[in-house]
């Protein structure tokens, strides 16, 4: 802290420190603690706030635990988000490798522009595109029936639709970090491995993947977190059978008006994401500083 005031002078340095404190306290720490506080208290009418019933308990969390379907939806959200993460990785890895090691600079910059354009657009518009494609009378069913691959139209809204829409929505968050780390690999290492007789799969398993692990970890962490916390894709492309945990949170807030229970569900989601992030970083043996930069 001293260095800051020394470097920029007392008024300017103090100003910087104050701004940072305001941000971290007012927009990050205290709101999250308030959420936890809400989560641990019962939902009471305004007159009883601070009264004898207003105490801490785990009731809101136990409600989630004991609920016949909410716990299940929670698990399914984790499972589906993991599936989205794996799927996105499989879709992105070959292209990230190609961009990082094989393509010419011209090809790289052309493709990067092509890639970023859909992602500079609204997330909701990306969802809308899939909403149109997957509609019961929509182009996908029409094409598949026309080609004879389907005898009659299929309802795509639901798990499949959410999966396709999410993988699409978060593609770039997986692709760019992997591309970045693959591009730092010296191509001579690949040539050397090949000269020593390694096949394509072995080269990827033993040379490219280990080298790119920081990028892969970053991509997986972000994709999983975005998927688990997404509201748009499940709301637009889902069906009653494919409800997402975030939809439950929304309903507690704006349908049932029980903010305390909503807060408890929010805390649960936050903890899940923390555990997933830390777990993935540990799994890939990557530290936070190199994963997020």
């Amino acid at each position, binding site marked *: 802290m001293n260095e800051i005031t020394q470097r920029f002078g007392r008024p300017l340095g103090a100003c910087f420190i104050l701004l940072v404190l305001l941000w971290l306290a007012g927009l990050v720490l205290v709101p999250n603690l308030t959420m936890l506080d809400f989560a641990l208290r019962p939902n009471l009418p305004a007159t009883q706030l601070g009264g004898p019933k207003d105490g801490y308990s785990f009731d809101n969390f136990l409600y989630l635990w004991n609920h016949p379907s909410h716990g299940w939806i929670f698990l399914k959200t984790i499972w589906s988000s993991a599936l989205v993460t794996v799927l996105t990785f499989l879709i992105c890895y070959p292209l990230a490798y190609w961009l990082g090691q094989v393509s010419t600079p011209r090809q790289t910059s052309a493709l990067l522009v092509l890639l970023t354009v859909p992602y500079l657009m609204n997330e909701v518009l990306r969802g*809308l*595109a899939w909403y149109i494609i997957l509609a019961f009378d929509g182009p996908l069913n029409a094409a598949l029936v026309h080609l004879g691959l389907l005898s009659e139209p299929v309802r795509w809204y639901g798990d499949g639709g959410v999966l396709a829409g999410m993988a699409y929505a978060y593609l770039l968050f997986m692709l760019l970090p992997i591309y970045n780390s693959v591009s730092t690999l010296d191509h001579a290492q690949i040539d050397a491995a090949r000269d020593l007789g390694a096949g394509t799969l072995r080269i990827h398993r033993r040379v490219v993947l280990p080298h790119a692990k920081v990028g892969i970890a970053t991509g997986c962490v972000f994709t999983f977190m975005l998927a688990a*916390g997404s509201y748009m894709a499940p709301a637009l492309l889902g069906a009653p059978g494919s409800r997402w945990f975030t939809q439950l949170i929304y309903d507690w807030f704006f349908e049932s008006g029980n903010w305390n229970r909503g807060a408890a569900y929010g805390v649960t989601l936050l903890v899940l994401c923390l555990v997933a992030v830390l777990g993935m970083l540990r799994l890939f043996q990557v530290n936070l500083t190199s994963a997020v930069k």
Partner: protein
Amino acid sequence: MTDMPIATANSHKPASPLRHRFLASRLPDVLPRLAFRLYFVFFLTYLLLPLLILAAATFNRSSFPTIVPWLGTTDMWIAALFRDGEILKALGSSAVIAAGVIAISLPVGTAAALVLTSLHGRARSVLYAMMVSPLLTPGVVIGIATLLFWRKVGVGGGVALSILAQSSFIISFVMLMVAARLQRFDRTMEDAALGLGASRVYVFRRILLPFLRPALVGACFIALLQSFENYNTTLFVRGTETPLTIFIASKVRAGLTPVINALGLMMMVATVIGAVLWEVVRHRKRSTPGAGR
């Protein structure tokens, strides 16, 4: 696309009687190449087809946006877009929020990067973890935490709260971008200016800020995009305000017409023009030696 990930191992020409056997022996090489080509086409289709369909549906007479069946080509939806007061209002609301987010997150993000880079060791990694934590928090959770805390202190849902909630994580983006640029800053320039009698504030204003300019311009751009496209966080803090993403999503569920597609088309066109300009400027900068440092 000519050079595939598999390096051309045996490029010498075979004698013609051996050609057949040669081809067979090269099958393991040719097959992955063919697979990559197929994959490449699949990837581009997956990436771009949804957008093309979204755009094409703008010109279909059908009042539900689709491309099958084609009921005749029309530009009436584009004309309707410019008459639609609601959309313009939503656009205005998004613009106000984005302006607020930029006004908060550029200074705070810069201050955060400066504070961070003048710390060392454990204090630095702890602060770093806190500063990037909003990026690893699901948007829904940021929304409800902000709502719960700020409502307690008297700020209800609306434009102001949307600005605060979005800033909470957009500041992290700005911080990362500024910090990346700061790594290349030569501190001796500051010392030289101080030695020549400049005040600390003057040094900051005339040396550090101009050096950070490219990062700040980029950060401004990212902040604008992130703010405009944000849905998950804004959903909880918007109050009765209807920014663009919220407006589009609400239309998708009730009363979707190709006017929304027309809006998407406009945004796409703007994005493509922006991306191309960006690339052109970047190229020009790179080819003029000394420019942009």
